[in-house]
């Protein structure tokens, strides 16, 4: 059973979804996360253990991404493999036998339509056991405020790619903090730095999806 769990983690890292998937080339014809997760559950492996393997696999590919050893396409293949695991685990979340770690509201701020990075973060965070509420792109402060109202205790993630939309990011943080001072906000995107995040009043900054997971798992919202 241990082997099955380890293989699920490896398939997440390598982006191997199922037996018929041609990717990656050196794993053609082998089982992927879809078959392995089903087999693991049938064999009595707990969903928590599978979720942990998934999270470990995403961490490994995330670390390689941070070191520029792989790029966004590999990360997206891993996210797809992880989604195949999550499809099997969804019933356990719905019945409450596996609890989400918390809620994470994410969106690209007003004036910005770039969403690839935001989507990647959403997928990786979800794969790490968080419930994700995705507000999409060009999201105005009021949309974030509504989402925080509807999801008490959530953490908020703001994304921007244009330098000039960082003003809107700052405004959004200000409005969230004014109405919900206890809500944690993490920011990310190409023009952001830790210094810029501090100046805006954000609680955290992450240069990549793994950074967001580390921030969330660091005790923001249990």
């Amino acid at each position, binding site marked *: 059973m241990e082997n099955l769990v380890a293989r699920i983690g490896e398939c997440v890292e390598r982006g191997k979804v199922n037996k018929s998937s041609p*990717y990656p080339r050196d794993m053609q014809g082998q089982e992927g996360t879809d078959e392995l997760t089903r087999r693991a559950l049938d064999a009595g492996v707990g969903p928590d253990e599978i979720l942990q393997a998934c999270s470990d696999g995403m961490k490994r590919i995330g670390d390689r991404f941070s070191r520029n050893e792989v*790029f966004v396409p590999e990360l997206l293949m891993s996210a797809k493999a992880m989604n195949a695991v999550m499809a099997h685990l969804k019933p356990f979340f719905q019945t409450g036998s596996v609890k989400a770690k918390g809620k994470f509201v994410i969106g690209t701020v007003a004036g910005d339509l770039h969403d*690839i990075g935001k989507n990647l973060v959403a997928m990786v965070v979800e794969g790490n056991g968080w419930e994700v509420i995705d507000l999409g792109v*060009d999201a105005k402060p009021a949309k974030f405020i509504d989402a925080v109202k509807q999801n008490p205790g959530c953490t908020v993630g703001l994304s921007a790619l*244009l*330098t*000039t939309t960082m003003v809107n990011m700052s405004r959004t943080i200000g409005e969230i903090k004014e109405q919900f001072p206890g809500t944690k906000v993490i920011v990310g995107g*190409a023009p952001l730095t830790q210094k810029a995040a501090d100046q805006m009043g954000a609680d955290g900054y992450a240069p990549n999806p793994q950074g967001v997971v580390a921030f969330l798992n660091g005790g923001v919202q249990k």
Partner: protein
Amino acid sequence: MRLRETEIEKNSFEVSIGFEDLPFDTTEIELTLGYSDGEIPVHFSGMIDEAAGQLPRRCDIRAGYRILDVSRPEERLDGLVVGGTFFRLDKIVTGQMKKSTQAALFVATIGPSMEEWSRQLLKGDEPALGYIADVAASTAAETVTNLLHDHIGEKMRSLGLNITNRYSPGYCNWSVSEQHLLFSLLPENFCGVTLSESALMHPIKSVSGIIGIGPDVKWKDYICDRCGVKDCTYRATRRRESLNPKL
């Protein structure tokens, strides 16, 4: 001039560009994705071919420009007056444009079909292909804009004038909100591109901006070391060109 243009209003021109006019090179997509030349996994190189194969039938290319007079108010150092409207261009763009006597405000688009296809794939079962389709679409939009830029340069040189590099709202510290000013000076629904309330273009795969014109202006590279955006398209283009001068 190689490309045909039609004057649709006074000093406003729409330029006819077909997909066959684009010097499209899939190596550029590989480099934008991050892979060094020839190091992309075969699986993704197949996806690039698939995405590039969709471009000819999904690109609805439209491009155009309007020529307007430029002046520089003495008391203002942070922008220029273009067509009677003050643009707060910030220091980088103002510095490059300050000797302009005229400017071309331009728009170029490849239409909505590629972005719609990319979005479907990203939401569905093929996120990697969706991402690669998005990068291919952005590359195509930039290639169209390069052609338009070259066309404007060729036309101005025939009149004894020079042109600058091009600058777009949202980049080089020029606020994206000034898109509204830029579009207010263009014919309505110019090239089929419209703006949202928050100044974003539809179709998304569109490029708008300004090019300085005048006898004394010079074309200069982007001054990326003065800007904080490390992953900017134009910085990436510069990096690609320095790594691979043939592009």
